[in-house]
């Protein structure tokens, strides 16, 4: 080193610098544009929205809309991960549109067979001890496959009237204790402040058990579509009973026989009798990937994943078949496994590139096994309309196109 001249050393340093500069120039050309400039500042926008590359992940109306305010839109289950439904993607079922309710003017009246009728402001409700519970909500009209299912249906079409959120509010039991319920009270009429004054009768046992008068959803106040500023939430029961924009609870000694529990939301059986008060959403599951509308690109490893739930309690096991129900394997269940909540299941699978028929069945902690379609239709016929909870099959064709097996 002692022999180096100053000149030579300078030359080496200069050479190294040039090399570094060249490399940096090359790096700049290779780096994506979002690494070569500052990104957007904070609070753009103040309430964050999904990436613009996710614009196809949206709710979709299920049918052509004659009356867009008395209709439904489905959650894009095939595009979601885990068990929580983002608030903006929670399914919708409105009977008279989404009312714009002023929380300062909104009141909840509790009366009827009580010792002390009471009227509450939203501020009053917010003062009570609160509870947060993660539960699914499913429309009893979800999975319209009693009649005429379509091969091009996606999970959003078949099972999209299903969502799962953390709901926060006051246990209804707390409010019932406040008003003092007469022993003769057997039913609670719940009524909404929408243009349908949507109303359902709830059995008193459910009201005392796990019903929530909810004001928040996934950490923020309810979305208008979900009942802002106040809704009833009945874990495990058919969705329409969780009355949105809740304005009144009336205790009575018999069901109120509203239109939504006589003309609608009753299940017509083959003998012409209508089953009434079919509240509980029975155990059910659906594979969300691979699923209808998707395309498998290459043979080899594919994860089969989906959702399972039961209105009676926890999911005990989910079994998956890749041969249309001939043989079954147990899927792994992702914690947490909560009662009346979606449970995510997964099964590793190697696709050989040929035809396959993917199907799942849920078993809940009562031991009930989700039935195949034939068993369900054998009992219920095809005019039942609601509470279709049969096993769902996705057909994979040679080449990887996935469709609804009908």
């Amino acid at each position: 080193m002692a022999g180096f001249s100053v000149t030579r050393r300078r030359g080496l340093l200069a050479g190294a610098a040039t090399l570094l500069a060249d490399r940096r120039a090359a790096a700049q050309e290779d780096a994506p544009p979002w690494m070569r400039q500052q990104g957007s500042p904070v609070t753009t926008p103040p309430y964050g929205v999904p990436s613009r590359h996710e614009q196809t992940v949206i709710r979709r109306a299920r049918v052509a809309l004659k009356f867009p305010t008395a209709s439904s839109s489905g959650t894009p289950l095939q595009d979601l991960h885990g068990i929580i439904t983002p608030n903006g993607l929670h399914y919708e079922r409105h009977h008279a549109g989404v009312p714009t309710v002023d929380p300062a003017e909104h009141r909840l009246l509790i009366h009827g067979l009580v010792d002390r009728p009471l009227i509450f402001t939203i501020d009053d409700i917010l003062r009570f001890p609160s509870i947060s519970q993660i539960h699914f909500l499913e429309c009893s009209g979800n999975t319209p496959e009693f009649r005429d299912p379509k091969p091009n249906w996606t999970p959003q079409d078949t099972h999209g009237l299903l969502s799962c959120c953390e709901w926060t509010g006051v246990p209804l039991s707390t409010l019932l204790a406040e008003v003092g319920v007469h022993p003769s009270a057997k039913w609670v009429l719940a009524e909404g402040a929408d243009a349908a004054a949507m109303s359902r009768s709830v059995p008193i046992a459910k009201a005392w058990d796990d019903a929530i008068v909810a004001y928040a959803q996934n950490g923020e106040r309810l979305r208008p579509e979900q009942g802002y500023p106040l809704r009833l939430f009945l874990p495990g029961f058919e969705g329409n009973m969780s009355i949105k924009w809740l304005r009144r609870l009336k205790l009575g000694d018999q069901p109120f026989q509203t239109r939504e529990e006589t003309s609608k939301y009753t299940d017509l059986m083959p003998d012409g009798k209508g089953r009434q008060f079919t509240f509980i959403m029975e155990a059910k599951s659906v594979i969300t990937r691979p699923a209808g509308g998707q395309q498998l690109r290459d043979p080899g490893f594919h994860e089969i994943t989906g959702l399972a739930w039961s209105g009676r309690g926890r999911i005990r096991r989910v079994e998956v078949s890749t041969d249309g129900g001939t043989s079954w394997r147990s899927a792994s269940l992702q914690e947490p496994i909560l009662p009346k909540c979606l449970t995510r299941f997964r099964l590793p699978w190697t696709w050989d590139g040929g035809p396959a028929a993917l199907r799942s069945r849920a078993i809940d902690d009562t031991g009930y096994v989700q039935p195949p379609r034939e068993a369900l239709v054998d009992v219920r016929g095809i005019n039942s309309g609601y509470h279709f909870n049969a096993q769902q099959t996705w057909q994979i064709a040679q080449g990887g196109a996935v469709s609804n097996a009908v």
Partner: protein
Amino acid sequence: MRFDYLAPAICAAMAVVPASAEPRHYAFGRTPTEAEIAAENIDIRADGKGLPPGQGSVAQGRDIFAQTCAACHGDNGQGLLSDRLVGGFGTLKDHNPVRTVGSYWPYATTLFDYVRRAMPFNAPQSLTDDQVYAVSAYVLSMNGILPEDAVLNAANLPTIGMPNRNGFISPDPRPDVR
């Protein structure tokens, strides 16, 4: 007693919780006035409890129906944009059952309740009680359940025998899934 030896432990545990943590009543909210309850108390039970004073005839209902209902339900309640209201008797076991007010609804009171709270679709709660009685009478008359000269009121509406009154199974509706 099994609990005897636990008593000191329970007392000790209680001692660390202030007695005021959970009051017997929170006393939030207030007592509504009778007028406030009456303003919201719109439901009609199957036995007629809740029906308001007033009356309406089939003839009056025919005019109201033509003006406010026929655009969606059809001139004769045959269904158009919205539900069919008339007929379908004896079809509930068919491959394509027709569920109408006449063939399916178990209570006439439900018709009054629903029309009053939610119809007409473009202007809910815009009809007077007399008009709701009248239009209910007309829909029932189109179904042959009431005669053409009928006048409905709070006394006779709950007594109407709907054809499908005994057409529902409850309260053990799904033995196949239990």
